[in-house]
């Protein structure tokens, strides 16, 4: 129990550090967002009208007061979920925009990652069990090859082949002629739109798990406890899963949890290619349009996701590996 409490304590502490950094780092950047906005509206070479700038400042709610009081204000607003107004989606609030995109990405990514992890780990374990056999060679070669491909390129191929060529799936957007909500029309529509982005990610993501799992498991198969399990005459399935794979899984689980946190960045290109209404596309846009409040919120979201993932990884490791519980407790 102490182990878990300590981990949660660390989580809270790091979260505070992240939030604080997220406050200070943008303030270290040069340039005034209000001036930039006016410039964008008025054209590059136009004179800046101070009144316009002031108006924009008022509109965005430019902070006043000392850095310290700004910081407290910022914390207070975070607590209320107030991230300010998006520049690109003005007059919508950042949280509103993110809230709409959030579930699109989360559902897509969760399904893809869980499936990829399961498939990858199983393939890797099986390849290791039959190491140097035909299956192993094929899996290793294909994984290495696919690992070198860029997801957006695969995405383009899929759009060309399955989208335009065969016309099986929609090629862009999240839904078309249905009303969002829990009705069959919409679910079908969403699946049809989400299929290609999901497939693209499904081709690339398992690769890391396959190779990682295979290599750890090959090492594990040489361990005495695996040899002893064979000498015990236990069936192959038990030796492979309960003894070898169970131990080989440990580093992969940590990797998996960490990957979940970093997944947002990985979806930028794919979501952009498919014009999928998720967080990745939002982040791409925010960077392109210098939408600072949006970026700041997304950064914070990414950081929190990574931290949460770390926490989950630590907690999970404690459950899976009895040694970790004691060594760090």
């Amino acid at each position, binding site marked *: 129990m102490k182990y878990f409490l300590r981990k949660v304590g660390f989580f809270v502490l790091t979260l505070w550090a992240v939030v604080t950094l997220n406050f200070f780092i943008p303030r270290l950047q040069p340039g005034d967002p209000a001036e930039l906005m006016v410039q964008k509206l008025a054209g590059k070479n136009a004179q800046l009208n101070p009144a316009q700038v002031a108006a924009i400042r008022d509109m965005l709610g430019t902070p006043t007061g000392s850095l310290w009081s700004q910081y407290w204000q910022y914390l207070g607003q975070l607590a209320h979920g107030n991230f300010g107004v998006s520049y690109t989606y003005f007059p919508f609030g950042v949280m509103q925009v993110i809230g709409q995109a959030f579930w699109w990405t989360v559902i897509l990514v969760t399904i893809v990652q869980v499936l990829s992890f399961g498939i990858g780990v199983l393939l890797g374990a099986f390849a290791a069990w039959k190491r140097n056999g035909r299956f192993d060679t094929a899996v290793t070669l294909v994984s290495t090859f696919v690992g070198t491909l860029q997801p957006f390129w695969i995405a383009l191929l899929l759009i060309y082949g399955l989208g335009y060529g065969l016309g099986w799936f929609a090629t862009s957007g999240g839904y078309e002629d249905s009303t969002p909500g829990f009705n069959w029309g919409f679910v079908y529509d969403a699946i049809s739109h989400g299929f290609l982005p999901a497939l693209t990610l499904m081709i690339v993501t398992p690769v890391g798990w396959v190779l990682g799992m295979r290599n750890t498991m090959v090492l594990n198969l040489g361990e005495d406890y695996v040899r002893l399990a064979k*000498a015990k005459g236990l069936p192959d399935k038990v030796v492979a899963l309960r003894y070898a794979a169970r131990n080989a899984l440990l580093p992969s689980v940590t990797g998996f949890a960490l990957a979940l946190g970093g997944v947002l960045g990985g979806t930028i290109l794919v979501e952009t290619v498919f014009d999928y209404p998720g967080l990745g596309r939002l982040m791409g846009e925010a960077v392109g349009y210098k939408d600072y409040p949006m970026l700041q919120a997304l950064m914070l979201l990414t950081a929190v996701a990574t931290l949460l993932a770390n926490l989950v990884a630590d907690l999970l490791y404690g459950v899976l590996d009895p040694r970790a519980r004691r060594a760090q407790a």
Partner: protein
Amino acid sequence: MTATVTTTDRAATGGPLLSVERLSVRYEPKRHAPTEAVSDVSFEIRPGEFIGLIGESGSGKTTLGTALLRLLERPGRISAGRIVFDGTDITDLPEDDLRGMRWTEISTVFQSSMNSLNPVLRVDEQFRDVIEYHTRRRGQQVSDRIDTLFDMVLIDRRFQRSYPHELSGGMRQRINLALALAIEPRFVLLDEPTTGLDVVVQKSILDNIRRLQAELGFAVLFISHDIGTVLDLSDRILVMYGGRIVEQQRARDLLADPLHPYTKGLLGSYGDPRAETVTITYVPGRPPDLTAGYTGCAFAPRCPEAIAGCRSVEPPLLRLGEHGGEAACHVAALQRGQGERSGVGTEEVGPVVRGFAGPQFVKTAEDERSLHDREVLLSVDAVSKTYLRRRGLGTTRTEAVRDASFVLRKGAVTALVGQSGSGKSTLARMITGVESPSTGSVTFHGEQGSFAVGSRRGRSLRDYRSHVQMVFQDPYSALNPTKTLGYILSRPLANYRGLRGAEARRAVLELLETVALTPAERYIDRFGYELSGGQRQRVVIARALAVEPELIIADEPIASLDVSIRAEILELLNSLVRDRGVTILYITHDLLSARMIADDVVVLNQGRVVEQGPALEVIRNPQDDYTRLLLDAVPNPTAG
């Protein structure tokens, strides 16, 4: 499982339980030359028999064991011969047919106790899975069986719910033994089950094995590099060298009349530390390179008795002893009028010698130097070391060393003796200045005056280190595998003595000569992994000598070496003391080696010094029970 039915009939007829017929095992890696790790090995084990299989590292004994268990992995495979278990040829038996015999008939305890239990499963689950798979026992019946097994190996039942990492090495190995007996197999293969464990723990486990074997009557093949641990347990001994069986005799015949010079060499490496004069021999050179192939007898290059024929004709295993003892040795054959059968005709040989006619290391009572007039080089005064470990909110205190006091005198060897956990290594770390004592002080009386070691930091600590050097236990990991010996030895020369270029090279050659790696030119450009264990340890010692230290701390320098070459390193250390006047702190758990090189002995138990004094006095006339316990644990086949 059908095998179980037929077996009882066969056992009754008195046939062998396991018979190995002309078995060869080859390793055929894709990128390297193939190696025949086991060649043409034949032997039988009768029901209930206890057989010892002895050989040094690389002799093929573990490969043979793995082959018997049918656990060889590619690129290793059985290339010739048969393994017959109780009438069933299991050489090529498919895994599915073999499975029914595994553990119910043949079980095993592996070498490394650390790793043969699954770290993520509780101990009882690892009993439960195998018992439930092979028997009809379920639920409470299984639990009862596990209880019985834990009682058999004298482990408290409450440890059943522990994870392996929560148990000590000795406990784990007892549990492995219990696991091996879970389904009452008729044959148990023990592959170095006590290697790496403490002498005292080792002795209690061996006693346990002996008692259980007598009670339950299973047959044992006990593989070991240490003939001392198996001789008095075994009915019969097989000696393996270079992948072949070179001698096979009843244990007591082997002790009384060893036939093969290699066996004599192995026996010669033991002695009674309590004797007036202790002589131990060692086998010089290194084991044969089996990839290169050889003609004649594989042992000939290291054999003091070798004759011309040994280098050209391979000796067959012949019956030479009175009670059916067999040996593959031309000299032994000729001495017994069997030269014709051995293939060397009538070559001249000397008379039978019982001991090993090779180099030896003798220590007599007169050798004891009087030391008490010597200057003190380092003094340990009332040193204690307490470790505080934070655990959640509370802390636990571990008193690693308690109030230890002793001195190291110039040009003398002091042995620090104790089993693992006695605080030996903690003391060593405080003497080298890696850690400082919690209370008390370690004072070094060097040429520039005395100072407390614990207070040194940075430059002055570095300066102190040039006076004190360590030699570690494991020479296999102490040398950087990517660097030549010349480079390894030149580093301390450059760092501490500022020697470079030709000057450094000359010094390196000198160092190699000092540790008897001659001709030095031949070694300077070689890599650590090309050398035998003994040679590597010589390099490690040479590296320690490079800075011309006044004190060398040797932490179990021979513990990981083959028994047959241990005396070689002891002799080297001894000559360093004699010729160069180095002071040595020799850390060990083995009182025989302490007797061989130490002038003084300090016995440490649970962090306390329980006894100290001149080596001969302490060892021949121990006052403390713990010292006696350590002495009794010294394996000594020759004591009979």
